[in-house]
């Protein structure tokens, strides 16, 4: 740590960060970096724990002897994951569903966020209210199930995409962003040039909103990837199950194996803990990898020079 700080101090003068000017490296910098380093450590340790478990022998894992350093290293668990056609296929399916979901979600979100961000829009207040209510009022499982059933959507890929595509939360965030960061002046000048609302959206608003577009697509993608309860209730076919749900089932059946009641009296096969850990890694890593790709949009400023005055 100490050595690293020295290095940092040396090249502090020359380092540049976007549109900030060069200022000397100060104590506050050190403190912040120290603090963030500690926080990061706490965040990564659980992953190291799971990773270590996933490449250890089951004996050591069952005995709870593996914390952060793998013991009796073996890649057996990963081998069996990749050998399991069901799981890899399901991974491919999840990726496709997530992509389609995110694309459609962004479309719906933009369609809602842009009009609602325009203060001049008649009836904006009521429309916003209408779109906001579902964030707080859920209909509950049974009515929802019956609704999807009446749409003949149960056990189809549509039920994994369409119902969740509309998200009031994402819409309102995006709208707030449009409101606060797209100056009216910009729009007005385009209007005077004879551009229509949709042209303005496509040519001016969206190109200026890359950070929020990146953010919201991340929210959509991660949201879809991480949730499994709709899988649990609305999907029955094995080939429509997303990986996250398969993972859930794995863990749930393991928990059940341990608490098997007298009634179900028989040895219950369960997924070995090592395999569970490996599956967590297998399922989590792809989605985590999205972030670094989107990150560039959060780092660079896009507004510089866009509008003068």
């Amino acid at each position: 740590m100490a050595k690293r700080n020295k290095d940092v101090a040396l090249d502090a003068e020359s380092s540049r960060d976007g549109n900030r000017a060069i200022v000397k490296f100060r104590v506050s910098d050190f403190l912040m970096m120290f603090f963030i380093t500690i926080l990061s450590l706490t965040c990564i340790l659980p992953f190291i724990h799971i990773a270590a478990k996933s490449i250890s022998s089951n004996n050591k894992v069952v005995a709870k002897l593996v914390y952060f350093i793998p013991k009796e290293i073996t890649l057996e668990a990963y081998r069996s994951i990749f050998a399991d056609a069901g799981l890899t296929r399901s991974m491919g399916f999840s990726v496709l569903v997530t992509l389609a979901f995110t694309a459609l979600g962004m479309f719906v979100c933009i369609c809602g966020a842009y009009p609602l961000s325009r203060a001049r829009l008649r009836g904006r207040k009521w429309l916003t209210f209408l779109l906001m209510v579902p964030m707080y009022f859920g209909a509950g499982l049974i009515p929802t199930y019956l609704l999807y059933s009446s749409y003949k959507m149960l056990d189809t890929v549509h039920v994994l995409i369409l119902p969740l595509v509309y998200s009031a939360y994402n819409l309102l965030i995006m709208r707030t962003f449009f409101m606060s960061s797209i100056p009216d002046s910009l729009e007005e000048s385009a209007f005077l040039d004879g551009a229509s609302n949709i042209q303005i959206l496509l040519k001016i608003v969206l190109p200026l909103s890359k950070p929020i577009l990146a953010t919201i697509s991340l929210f959509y993608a991660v949201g879809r990837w991480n949730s499994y309860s709709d899988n649990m209730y609305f999907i029955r076919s094995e080939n429509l199950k997303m990986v996250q749900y398969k993972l859930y089932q794995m863990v749930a059946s393991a928990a059940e194996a341990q608490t098997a009641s007298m009634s179900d009296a028989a040895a219950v096969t369960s997924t070995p803990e090592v395999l569970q850990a490996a599956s967590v890694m297998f399922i989590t890593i792809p989605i985590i990898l999205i972030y670094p790709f989107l990150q560039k949009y959060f780092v660079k400023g896009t507004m510089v020079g866009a509008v003068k005055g």
Partner: protein
Amino acid sequence: MAKTKETVSQEYKLRQEELKKHHRKSLWKDVRRDWQLYLLLLVPLAFVIIFNYAAYPGLRIAFMDYKPALGYDKSKWVGFGTFIKTFNDPDFVKSLRNSLVFNLADLAVTFPFPIILALMLNELRYPKFKKVSQTILYLPHFLSWAVIGSVAYTMFKPTSGLINMFLMKMGWIEKGIPFLTEKWHWAGTYLTVGIWQCMGWNTIIYLAAITSINGELYEAAMIDGAGRWKRMWHITLPGIRSTIVTLLIMSLGRVMGSNFERLKVFDNTMVRDFQYQLAVYIYEKGLQSAKFSMATAVGLFQSAVGLLLVLLTDRIAKSLGEEGLM
């Protein structure tokens, strides 16, 4: 040019007044001018109506003794019976109290933290460090509560937890700290883990908002000789203020509902006093014995209170000159 808070809100007021004048004159003209916007709005409206509002008639089971096999039509109506019974249940009152206290506390500590973290990350001057730490900080969002729970127990158990073992080994404490087994300590641990789990994830919105602050503002401020803290205070924070307000109002609507999975993994009999929140109540007394009417009734109550709070805070925010939610 740099807009100060005053000029912004002045402009806003002017625009509002203009709008009002407009309103009286030419509603039709406006609608015609913005027909494309309404067309766009049709898309989310269609979704929300087809997939959300269309299911709302099902909420009537809160006023019924609903039996799935009988369906909506044949189940008996009980009016407010379920509500009255629930409100008179001392366990409900206890869980309601816990929910309110804990969710407000959660909001109070969880909400500001990502903002602070976002400001810090924004001030970091080494892009690599910044990128890597951001990526790591958001990792906990991808862990299920089951995993977080088991890791937390490994760390925080009173005698065999790693932290207590370490502290005892170093001779700093004699008896293990009951992080998870004494209700006040538990409250602290529960909230801290909550912050930890969502802090990195929640900074993303703020970082995105910060990115879009006009860079010239910083340049101008720097020419004026404003230091780091001043810039943070006068440019960055005001720049993300509307995002903060939006998020705050939205999250107030959730002060009644707790995450059941989170409560479940932190459950043990020593801390039931605090752990017993509405989500647990619904699970224990409703879902586990297939009382869907009861679960729906409590859910409806939660939603109504949440929505009321949102509307109320929205009103307050507007009276303070913010854009608000609606």
